């Protein structure tokens, strides 16, 4: 839907605003500030809005006659409206048959309009409920996912820990032949309490001393 050969259906970018954000301006910090949040009244696409409006459901008693009592059950009222609409249509057709030019026809059409508006209003009143419900379901899903991930992570963690422990336990005991090598290694890098080094570090030093003593005695 953007640019065809002749006419673009989209408005042009606001060049006089865009040029204010040139390179130098951004570097010098002289770009215009973002617009402040709007309070109170504003108009959008020609309709006046107010930030204090009851979130999604402005009261019907603004412009239109109200047909249902104050505390009502949405579903029952919706059903009654549905039946009223069908009956009203029948009446309209009747009027058209008998006396098409009477003003009763216009009245009937107005009635139908009112009924339809009511129906849409009642359906819209369900929307915040739906939004909260969606939010609730999303939160539940998120919580379930987090717990699942934590669970799986813990399982992998335990498996990895087991593997490492196994590997440590299968390290061959230092025998006479490889003691010298271990001594050299100890000199090469000072151990800082790492797993492996700790496991063989202390053991090496101990058995190293013992074997040295044995060799000295020989």
């Amino acid at each position, binding site marked *: 839907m953007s640019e065809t050969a002749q006419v673009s259906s989209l408005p042009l970018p606001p060049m006089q605003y865009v040029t204010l954000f040139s390179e130098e301006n951004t570097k010098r910090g002289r770009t215009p500030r973002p617009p402040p949040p709007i309070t109170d009244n504003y108009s959008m696409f020609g309709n006046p809005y107010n930030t204090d409006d009851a979130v999604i459901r402005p009261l019907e008693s603004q412009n239109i006659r109200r047909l249902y009592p104050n505390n009502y*059950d*949405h*579903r029952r009222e*919706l*059903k009654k409206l*549905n*039946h009223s*609409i*069908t009956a009203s*249509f029948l009446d*309209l*057709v009747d009027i*058209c048959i008998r006396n098409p030019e009477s003003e009763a026809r216009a009245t009937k059409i107005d009635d*139908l309009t009112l009924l*339809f508006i009511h*129906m*849409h209003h009642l*359906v819209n009143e*369900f*929307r915040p*409920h*739906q939004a*909260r*419900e969606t*939010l*609730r379901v999303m*939160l*539940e899903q*998120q*919580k379930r996912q*987090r*717990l699942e*991930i*934590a669970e799986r*992570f*813990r399982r*992998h*963690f335990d498996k*990895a*820990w087991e593997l*490492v422990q196994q590997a440590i336990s299968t390290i061959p005991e230092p025998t006479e032949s490889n003691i010298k*090598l271990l001594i*050299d*290694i100890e000199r*090469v*890098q000072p*151990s*800082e309490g*790492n*797993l*492996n*080094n700790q496991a063989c570090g202390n053991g090496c030093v101990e058995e190293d001393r013992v074997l040295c003593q044995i060799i000295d005695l020989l």
Partner: protein
Amino acid sequence: MADRLTQLQDAINAQADNFCNAIGILQQTAPPATFPGFDRAGNRTPQQQQEDHASLFATLIARCAKDIDVLIDSLPSEDSTTELQIASLRRLEEGNEDAAARLREVVSEGELMLEKIQNALHDIAQTQLAMQSTSPST
């Protein structure tokens, strides 16, 4: 497949369309009526061989009204009120925060172990290098 509210809205609009179309088409395709008591011989019978728009539209409108009824029935009742919803949202949020804390804890443990293992591997690699440098024949 839109959600129930959107379906309901669409059904209501479809019903309105049905009304308008019904009246419009019936009016356009209506054969001329006879005057009572003004007997003209001949064409009294309206041509019923043409598509019977009247009954078609009647069926459509009735069916649409039934659909709207069914959709209305499927909506949630007044039991789950706003307060209930808000309360359950709050509970869920706390539960979510707990789950997040647990996850964070597990992840940090994992990261710690990862670091240790990486250090160990680093040491092993250095050891091997040292071994190779001290005994180049092996």
